C-alpha cells in the first residue's frame, strides 16, 4: 500500500471538492435563504483538511498499484459521503447518522431520504442535495468505464481497453484522463439537454436544473416531497423517462454514437438491445397489470404510470409519480425484480446490470445445451464476440456475492427491528441504489432505527462499488503483502 501517495491524492481531491460548495453559496446568496455561512464553513473545513492531507505529502508521487485502486475507490465514496454531510449537520441540524445517510444516498445516486418536508427546505440545501447526486453520477461513470475494468471487477474486464469489447468499437481514447474528460462532456451535454427539456415541459429553472442533475445521474432526489408526481404533467414524465433511460445506458455507447453521428451503435449493442427489450416488456406487463386490476382508470393512464415507474426503477432512479409499494398484487415484486436487473454496465444505474443478466442467462442456456450434447463445445457470445471463461466466472461470482449480500443484509435489518417486507424493501432500495422501498421505507427512511440506516449506508456502498471493490477490503489476503 502506498499510503502516503493515497493520502496526497485525497488531499487534492478534498481541495477540489471544496470548490463544489461555491455554487451552493451562490444559490444561497441569490435566494437570500440565510444559509451561505453553512456552505462557507463547509468549504473551509473541507479545504483545510484537504491541505492538511496534501501538504505533508507534497512530493509523494508513487504510482498507485492495482491493489491501491480498490482502497482509493472505496475511500473516495466514504470520504465524499462524510464531507457532503457537513451542510446537513450545520444547516439542517441533522444528527450524524441521518446526515451521512442522506449524503451517501446522494453520492451513490440512490435517492433514499430521511428528510420530511423537502418542499420547505432552503433553496441552497435543496441545490446541494441535487448537486451531490450529479457529482456522484459523474464519478461512477469514470469508475465504471475507466477504473473497474482495470481492477477486473465482476465481468467488467469486458470493458477493458474500453468498449473495444462488446460491439467491436475502437478504443475510446488511449488514456484514462482523456477518456474521463470525454465521458464528462457527454454527461454534461445530457444534463443540459435534460434541464432544457424539463424547462420547456413547464418546470421552474431551479427545479429543471435540480431534476436534470438527479435524472441523468439516475439518482432520484427531488425538490418536492411528492417527487415528479408533484407536477402531474405527462410532458415532464416523458422527458424524465427519456433521460433516465439515457442515464441508465452505457456511456461508452453514447460516446460511440456521438463520435459517429449515428444511432447505429445503440442498435448494434447487445446490452442496449436487452435493456430496451426489458423496458418494453416490463412496461407492457406492468401497464396491463395496472389496467386489469383497475388501479387506474383507462389504459392510457395505466401505460403512463407503468412506463414511468418501470423506467424509474429499472434505471434505479427512484422518482415516483405514485407509491409503487401500494400497487396491487404482483406489481411491486415485478418492479423489485426489475430493480435487481438494473441498467447497463458503464452507466449511472445500479443493480446487477443487464450485461451480467444477459451473460448469466446465456450461461444457463449453455448448461442446458450441454446436457443435450455432452461432447459439444460451445462459447458464450455477446453479439458476435466470444466471452472468455474468466469473465463468465467473474460474473457468476459477482451474482452470487450480490445475492448473498442482499440476503444477509435483509437478515441484519430484520434483526434491527424491521418486518420482513420493510427489511427486504430497505435492502432493495439501498443495494440496488433505488431509493424507495417497501413497507415502512416505501418513501422515507426517517422512522427507522439508526442501525438500519448504517446498514443502508453499507448496502448503498456495496451496490455502488459493484460488490467486489468493497468486499475485497474485508478479505485478509488483500492486506497481506
Amino acid at each position: 500500500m502506498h499510503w502516503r501517495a493515497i493520502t496526497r491524492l485525497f488531499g487534492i481531491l478534498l481541495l477540489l471538492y471544496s470548490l463544489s460548495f461555491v455554487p451552493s453559496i451562490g444559490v444561497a446568496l441569490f435566494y437570500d435563504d440565510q444559509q451561505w455561512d453553512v456552505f462557507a464553513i463547509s468549504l473551509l473545513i473541507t479545504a483545510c483538511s484537504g491541505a492538511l492531507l496534501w501538504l505533508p505529502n507534497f512530493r509523494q508521487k508513487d504510482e498507485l498499484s492495482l491493489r491501491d485502486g480498490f482502497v482509493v475507490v472505496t475511500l473516495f465514496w466514504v470520504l465524499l459521503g462524510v464531507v457532503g454531510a457537513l451542510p446537513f449537520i450545520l444547516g439542517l441540524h441533522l444528527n450524524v447518522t441521518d446526515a451521512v445517510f442522506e449524503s451517501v444516498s446522494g453520492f451513490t445516486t440512490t435517492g433514499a431520504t430521511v428528510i420530511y418536508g423537502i418542499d420547505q427546505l432552503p433553496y441552497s440545501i435543496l441545490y446541494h442535495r441535487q448537486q451531490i447526486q450529479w457529482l456522484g453520477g459523474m464519478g461512477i461513470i469514470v469508475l465504471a468505464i475507466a477504473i473497474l475494468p482495470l481492477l477486473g471487477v465482476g465481468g467488467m474486464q469486458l470493458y477493458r481497453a474500453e468498449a473495444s469489447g462488446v460491439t467491436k468499437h475502437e478504443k475510446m481514447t488511449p488514456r484514462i484522463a482523456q477518456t474521463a474528460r470525454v465521458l464528462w462532456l457527454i454527461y454534461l451535454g445530457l444534463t443540459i439537454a435534460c434541464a432544457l427539456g424539463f424547462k420547456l415541459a413547464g418546470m421552474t429553472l431551479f427545479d429543471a436544473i435540480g431534476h436534470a442533475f438527479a435524472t441523468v445521474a439516475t439518482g432520484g432526489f427531488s425538490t418536492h416531497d411528492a417527487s415528479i408526481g408533484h407536477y402531474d404533467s405527462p410532458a415532464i414524465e416523458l422527458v424524465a423517462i427519456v433521460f433516465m433511460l439515457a442515464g441508465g445506458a452505457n456511456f461508452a455507447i453514447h460516446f460511440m454514437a456521438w463520435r459517429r453521428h449515428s444511432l447505429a451503435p445503440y442498435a448494434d449493442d447487445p446490452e442496449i438491445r436487452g435493456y430496451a427489450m426489458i423496458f418494453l416488456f416490463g412496461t407492457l406487463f406492468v401497464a396491463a397489470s395496472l389496467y386489469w386490476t383497475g388501479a387506474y382508470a383507462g389504459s392510457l393512464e395505466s401505460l403512463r404510470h407503468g412506463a414511468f415507474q418501470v423506467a424509474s426503477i429499472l434505471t434505479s432512479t427512484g422518482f415516483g409519480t405514485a407509491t409503487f409499494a401500494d400497487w396491487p398484487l404482483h406489481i411491486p415484486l415485478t418492479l423489485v425484480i426489475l430493480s435487481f436487473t438494473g441498467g447497463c454496465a458503464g452507466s449511472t444505474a445500479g443493480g446487477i446490470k443487464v450485461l451480467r443478466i444477459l451473460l448469466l442467462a446465456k450461461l444457463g442456456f449453455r448448461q442446458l445445451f450441454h446436457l443435450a450434447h455432452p461432447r459439444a463445445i460451445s462459447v458464450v457470445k455477446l453479439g458476435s464476440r466470444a466471452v472468455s471463461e474468466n469473465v463468465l466466472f467473474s460474473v457468476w461470482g459477482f451474482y452470487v456475492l450480490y445475492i448473498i449480500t442482499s440476503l444477509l443484509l435483509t437478515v441484519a435489518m430484520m434483526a434491527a427491528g424491521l418486518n420482513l417486507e420493510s427489511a427486504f424493501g430497505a435492502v432493495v432500495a439501498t443495494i440496488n441504489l433505488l431509493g424507495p422501498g417497501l413497507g415502512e421505507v416505501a418513501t422515507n427512511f426517517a422512522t427507522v432505527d439508526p442501525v438500519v440506516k448504517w446498514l443502508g449506508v453499507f448496502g448503498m456502498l456495496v451496490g455502488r462499488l459493484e460488490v467486489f471493490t468493497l468486499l475485497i477490503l474485508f478479505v485478509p489476503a488483500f492486506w497481506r503483502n
Partner: protein
Amino acid sequence: MKIIILGAGQVGSTVAQSLSGEANEITVVDRKPELLKELQDHLDIRTVLGQASHPDVLIEAGIEDADLILAVTNSDETNMVACQIAHSMFHTPTRLARVRAPDYLVHPELFAPDAVPVDVLISPEELVTTFVQHLIEQPGALQILDFLDNRVQLVALCAENGGPLVGKQLRNLGYRLPKVELRVVAIFRRDRAIVPDGETVIEADDEIFFLASRRNIHAVVAAFRPIDKPYHRIIIAGGGNIGKRLAELLESRYRVKIVERNAERCRSLAASLRRTIVLHGDASDVSLAKGESFDQADVYCAVSNDDEVNILSAMLAKRMGVRKTLAIINRSRYVDLVQGSALDIALSPAQITIGAILTHIRRGDFVAVHSLRRGAAEAIEIVAHGDHKTSRVVGRCIDELPLPEGTTVGAIARREQVIFPQRDTVIESEDHLVVFLADKAKIVEVEKLFQVAVTYI
C-alpha cells in the same frame, strides 16, 4: 508454352501431371528434394531445388522467357512475392497465385497490377466449399459446375434403379419433360464413354452428364433416380479451413454439426460459428457418433486433411446409415478404390482447383475449364472468333464441325440468349460454346479447331 510451377504440393504436382501431357515445357520449384525427385521420376518435366521467391532460383528455373508462373507453395506470402518478382524483374506475362488467408482476399485492390501483380487468385478452399455446397443443395447430383455466367450448369449423376427412365431409351426424356431445355452430353458405363443418342437405353449405375439451367436440374435428376428428398442434417468431420467455411455457408439453412479433434480449434470454431453445434472428438469415435445420432444425418462430409481418416470415417458413417457420404481425398489412387462403393462422392481438391488454372494455360479464348472424372474428361467454355473465312467454326452448323470423337457441343450463349443447339444450329462469331470432351486427350484438336487463321486481325 513455358510454365513455371512454384511448390510441388498436391496442387502443384497435379497441375504438372496434367499439363506435362500437353506438350508444355514445365519446371517445378520446391524446397523439398524428395518431392521433386518423385515428380522427376514420373513426369517429363524439369525440377529446381530452392526457395521459390528468390530471384536467382527463379532465373535458374528459366523465368526470363517463361509464359506463365503458377505460385502454389503453401505460403501465401511466398506466392505473392514470387509474382511480384516475376512481374517487376522479368515481365512474365501471366501470373497465377494461390492465396488462402481471407485477410488478403477481402482486399481485391491489393492485387492490382501496380500493387501485388497477381492476375488470377486461386483459393482451393473456396472452390472446394462451393463444390460441396452445390452438391448439398442438389440431392442426387455427383457434381455441379457453372458455365456461361451461371446460366447453365453441367450436372453429373448416377442413374439408379427406381428412376423412371432407367431401362428406357433416352428419347423418353423429351416426352417426360417436354418444356425443359437440356442436353445429355455424355454417358459413362463401366468407365467407358458412350455417345448418347435417342436410342441409348439407360442402365442402372450409368454416370450421366447433362447441361440444363439451375431451376430444371431437380426435374432432370428425378428422371434418372428415385426421388431424393432434400437434405436437412449435415455432419462435417474436420474443422479445418474447409470445414469451417462449409459450416458458415450452410448453417443458416441446414442443421449442421461439426466434429473436430483439437479442443483449442473447437473453441475458435464455436466462437465464430452461429448455429452450428461444435463437437469435440474423433469423427470415427462410435460413441460420439451414436450419442449425436449420426445415423439420422442426411449428408456426412469428411473434410479433414488426412485421406485415410476421411475415408474410414465416411465409410463408418455410411455403415451407420447416413444417406450420402462424401470425403476429400487427395491421393488420386484412393479415389477409384472407394468412390461409388465405400462412399458416395470422393472430392479431390487438386482436381477441382486445376480447372481454374487450365483456363489460363490453354491456347484459345477459354472462359472456363473443368476437369472431370479424375482428369480423364473435360468440360470447357470457349469463345468462337473470326468469320467464315478465318475460322473453322464460325458460320458452320454443328453437324459440319470436324469435332473429334466423344466431343459434344452442349450449349451456346449468344449475347443474352442460351441455346441448346440442334444439328443445324449455325455458330456465330463471339458465341460462347460449352464443349464436353469425354477424352481429355482430344483437347489439342479442339484448340486447333477454334484457332483463328493468321489473316484474321
